[in-house]
């Protein structure tokens, strides 16, 4: 079975037998943009559900939102923006062939992502201790305010799905780092860095919409 992609130039684009390297680069970018569109539609459904419930239960959502820690959420927003900045800087470094800088910058991005998840862990566990968690029987009982239930259900779905995408992004960028450590990138080939950074920017963007909607409604 022949190799699908042979690497003849250690810092150049892999040779793919069915298209030239310029087309391959353009195809990869286009493909990632299309994938980002699907992610936006995925979260879009959740945003629609949130909008509907918020319109119906405006005041309860107002109050429920006060249970969320705006400082933690705000810090997470800053953390993600910083992580995106470093991802963008990594693309620039890759274009200039500075693989070591790529590794450094993306490592900062991943550290920020870890920070995000740590803060998220603290948020979730504090909710858990307050009993504001769907598996908690008191939360699920018919006496518990229905609008609160809906708010928190959506809160966990949206932030949970987002956190899953953070983890996926971290894995993706980790793979890019492993390539950079082998000195893979140059001005002739930096597709994985660019495509990985694009994905990371979307993860950031989704949080930038989630944060005001969930935390600042109160």
């Amino acid at each position, binding site marked *: 079975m022949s190799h699908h992609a042979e690497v003849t130039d250690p810092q150049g684009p892999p040779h793919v037998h069915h298209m030239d390297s310029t087309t391959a680069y353009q195809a990869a970018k286009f493909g990632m943009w299309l994938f980002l569109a699907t992610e936006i539609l995925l979260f879009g459904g959740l945003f629609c559900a949130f909008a509907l419930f918020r319109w*119906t*239960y*405006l*005041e309860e959502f107002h109050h429920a939102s006060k249970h969320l820690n705006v400082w933690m959420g705000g810090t997470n927003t800053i953390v993600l923006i910083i992580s995106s900045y470093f991802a963008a800087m990594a693309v620039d470094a890759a274009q200039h062939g500075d693989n070591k800088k790529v590794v450094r910058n993306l490592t900062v991005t991943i550290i920020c992502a870890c920070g995000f998840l740590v803060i998220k862990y603290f948020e979730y566990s504090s909710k858990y201790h307050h009993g504001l968690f769907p598996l908690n029987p008191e939360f699920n009982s*018919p*006496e518990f*305010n*229905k*609008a609160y239930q809906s708010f928190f259900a959506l809160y966990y779905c949206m932030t949970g799905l987002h956190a899953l995408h953070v983890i996926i992004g971290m894995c993706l960028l980790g793979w890019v780092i492993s390539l950079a450590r082998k000195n893979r990138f140059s001005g002739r080939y930096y597709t994985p860095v660019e495509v990985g950074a694009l994905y990371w920017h979307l993860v950031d963007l989704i949080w930038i919409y989630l944060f005001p909607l969930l935390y600042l409604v109160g």
Partner: protein
Amino acid sequence: MFRYLPEQASTFAPDVDWIHHWITDISVFFTVAIFGAAVLFAIIYRRRDGKDHKTPQILGDHKLEAIWTVVPTIICIFVAVEGLLVYRDIRTPPDKAMELSVTADQFSWSFEYPNGKKTLNEVTVPVGEPVRFTMRSKDVIHSFFVPAMRVKSDVLPSIFTRVWFEPVKTGRYQGYCTEYCGAGHSTMLFSVNVVSGAEYDRWLNDDSQEFMMSRMGAEEKGMALYEQQNCITCHSVDGSRKVGPSFAGLWGKKEKLTDGTEVTVDENYIESSIVNPNLQIVMGYGPLMPSYEGQLPIEDIKALISYIKSLEKTTIAPASADPVAAAPVDRSKLTPPELGKLLVQEKACGACHSVDGNKLIGPTFKGLYGRKGKLADGSSYEADDEYLKHSILEPMAQVVEGFAPSMPSFQGQLSEEEIASIIAYIKTVN
């Protein structure tokens, strides 16, 4: 035309069938014409002796494309519009329709009549009278379908839905549940029994034992709840204005809301006001009603609705008529404090702010102007012009100590001049 459609048992059945026949005629014509052309071409232009004959390289024809785009469009517009008109009739019950209540569950239909009588899986109605069904499900989504009447609607557990029809001949007509609802879906049938007016009256008032028990109509139950659940504290039934709108004449009224939209008071609006009261507030009233979510089962809500419906024609006691609706005033002739007093009445500030020194939900206006004190956050305030204006526009920003942050903002509802006149009025309250 083939008569495969059921008999036309309602007033609008012939209209539905009329469009149906039109669509059939158009469809059959085009199908025969187009498929006929294809078959014709396949025959007369077929290859002979296994060899292709010469073909012309015809690429297209703009005129033809235009014709066969425009003509179907016109036909579609015609059909769509006719369909909309019939739909509008089917969805708009006449005002004097008799009201019946329908409850669907897995797997039966129960019907309730205006006098409280209940029947199961069969409904009796008089011929020649429009009847309106208000429907609700106890569990999953069902659908109420009577083919001979040409009506159908899903029956939901979350809101009320409605159908109406006017039967034109007596007889027994089949009804089906037509939204899949589980194992018994295909057994969930019912009958619509259309009888003469006289026979209906006789049947309805049949005082047989088994339904005497359910005779306490929904209205009486609703009235009992009105007192037990303390609706009486804020809502009168004689037209006088209390904290909330009076129930007299409320049913079917078109109310203007605080957000500028309009709503007609129907079952869904009343239910929504009971479980989620601050979503749609009538203009001139404050967001003060507590929610009864989880406290009143749907049967009680239905009973309250019946009670409110029964007050539709109650005349309003003139002495305590809504002052706002009383003789309109020429505002340009009022002094600022007079205008302020009128606005205070219109905007229902009195629901929370007394003028006689009593502590209500908000601070009293008596002696308010110039008062100094502490705010909820510990800082101090002085009730001067700027503070009062700020309280009207951004009430949550500086709340007086000992009071809750529950005043709504009047941003966008009052002009600068009006705010100044209110402040002028408050100055006079001593």
